[in-house]
């Protein structure tokens, strides 16, 4: 028999289980286990509580709920690989901290919500019989602080500021008239509700901040070089927007996520384009310019207005509009018309974030872009990942078929650049090749 490392839901009254030494014998058991336990956190997923425990009564239930997130979906912003890391790290930290807690003797079970939340259930003494060594509220705060600390250490630099842990705690005394399973679920829902309310007020603050940024035109454009990978020569620049320095809205990821949630993308994007084209450094004006735009903006009458397109064309004669694969439209025919208008105005098209696992390839084949920008999640560690290399090779084949050039994004280390060159990718950008900068020198310096 092999030992299995996992958290068992039968964690009662502090008797944390020893390593479970049974191995599922049948495919049915293996399948059931896969449903009951989450593959990333190794914790039981809450609604799939083991049937034999469904009717267990907890006289005085305590719940600490911890939710990963910060105003919007971290996973949508950074991808599932990063989010898997976050969840695994939170699960590890939580289990360690719960075990070493003064409330450990009262722990009933730790469960995962299946998406962003973790529940710690306690079987508490009924009041009057004995006092807890620490209040549940303090325990929630302690667990939260400890997990945040652990996340800062384990996440890639830059990503940690986008993730936060929100916590709530509450207790509920059992009512014999209520079915125990429903009593537990209702209490857990209540704990989630407390966190949601807190989150809503934070969202309102951010929305007010965004309105201020747009009204005060507090945005700046930075430019990142796109280089020929074999020799480092600069082919063009990608314009990237930044919000007010030192604020949470400085990051374009946060800025656009807040705008999207409040349906203000078109306002924000229109302002971005205005700023980019009115502040072009001379060196950027002389090279190809990559500019991001959402499908929503491109279909908007204000953008499609002939005067607007002519204005863009006058400001810069060699513009590539990047459309993210993530938000690609399904009505290709309608979108072809939009692209036709842009091409008439001498703009080229790039599909951004290609290979990031969204709708993808069909879109690329239909829209026949001039450039395919390969998602940074696919580029990261490509030298050590055969499947990523396979995906990139397929994108290259598609590119050849439709006459599109590949540009790899997010290149951070030399091994990635070298692998991309070996795979025939001609162009790329990323910190290895040059960070985004507000001042762009006219000299086309080589990066390596």
């Amino acid at each position, binding site marked *: 028999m*092999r*030992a*299995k*490392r*996992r958290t068992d839901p039968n964690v009662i009254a502090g008797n944390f289980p020893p390593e479970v030494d049974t*191995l*599922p*014998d*049948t*495919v049915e058991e*293996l*399948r059931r*286990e*896969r449903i009951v*336990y989450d*593959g990333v956190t190794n914790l039981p997923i809450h609604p799939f509580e083991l049937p034999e425990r469904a009717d267990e009564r907890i006289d005085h239930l305590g719940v600490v709920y911890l939710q990963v997130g910060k105003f919007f979906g971290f996973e949508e912003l950074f991808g*599932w690989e990063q989010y898997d890391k976050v969840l695994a790290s939170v699960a590890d930290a939580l289990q360690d901290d719960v075990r070493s807690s003064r409330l450990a003797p009262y722990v009933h079970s730790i469960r995962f919500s299946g998406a962003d939340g973790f529940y710690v259930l306690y079987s508490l003494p009924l009041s009057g019989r004995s006092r807890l060594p620490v209040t549940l509220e303090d325990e929630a705060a302690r667990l939260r602080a400890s997990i945040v600390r652990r996340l800062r250490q384990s996440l890639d630099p830059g990503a940690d500021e986008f993730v936060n842990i929100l916590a709530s705690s509450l207790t509920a005394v059992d009512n014999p008239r209520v079915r125990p399973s429903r009593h537990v679920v209702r209490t857990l829902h209540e704990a989630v509700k407390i966190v949601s309310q807190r989150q809503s007020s934070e969202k309102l603050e951010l929305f007010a901040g965004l309105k201020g940024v747009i009204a005060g035109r507090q945005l700046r454009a930075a430019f990142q070089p796109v280089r020929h990978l074999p020799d480092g020569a600069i082919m063009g620049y990608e314009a990237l927007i930044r919000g007010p320095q030192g604020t949470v809205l400085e990051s374009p990821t946060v800025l656009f996520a807040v705008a999207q949630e409040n349906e203000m993308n078109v306002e924000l994007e229109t302002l971005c384009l205005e700023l980019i084209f009115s502040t072009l450094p001379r060196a950027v004006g002389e090279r190809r310019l990559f500019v991001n735009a959402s499908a929503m903006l491109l279909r908007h009458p204000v953008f499609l207005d002939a005067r607007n397109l002519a204005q863009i064309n006058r400001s810069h004669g060699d513009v590539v509009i990047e459309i993210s694969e993530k938000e690609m439209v399904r009505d290709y025919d309608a979108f072809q018309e939009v692209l036709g208008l842009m091409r008439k105005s001498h703009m080229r098209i790039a599909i951004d974030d290609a*290979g990031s*696992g969204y709708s*993808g*390839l069909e879109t690329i084949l239909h829209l026949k872009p001039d450039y395919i920008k390969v998602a940074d999640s696919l580029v990261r560690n490509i030298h050590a*990942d*055969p*499947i*990523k290399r*396979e*995906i990139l090779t*397929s*994108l290259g084949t*598609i590119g050849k078929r439709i006459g599109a050039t590949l540009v790899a994004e997010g290149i951070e280390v030399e091994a990635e650049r070298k692998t991309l060159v070996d795979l025939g990718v001609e162009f790329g950008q990323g910190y290895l090749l040059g960070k985004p900068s507000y001042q762009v020198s006219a000299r086309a310096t080589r990066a390596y």
Partner: protein
Amino acid sequence: MKRIVVVDDDREVSSAVRDLLVPDGFAVDTPPEPRAALVETIRQVPDLVILDVNMPGMTGWEFCAILRRQTATREVPVLFLTGRSEVKDRITAMQLGGSDYLAKPFGAEELRKKVRSLLEETHTVEEG
């Protein structure tokens, strides 16, 4: 001797893979159906699993996801060998913890190269 398990409901494919890899010095098992193969793979962990995606009774995706949930087989390299060649299938393979991917039809040398590379990588990790 390194042991490889090939799980493919198409007997012609699994036999062809076995005939290719046995002369290279590998022990190759070709269990006839995925459900039995899964339990056996977890009990007797091989050095590499080569998996078809479309199989009756259990898909290769599910097979791989279950392997990744088990402590014993969490690190075993899995090579998907399948007629599906779309990029989204490769992305699924990656998300489920697959180690590499080879689209059918494939060349003998291509398969040998991938198998060697996957086994070498595990070897390096063990030694490192």
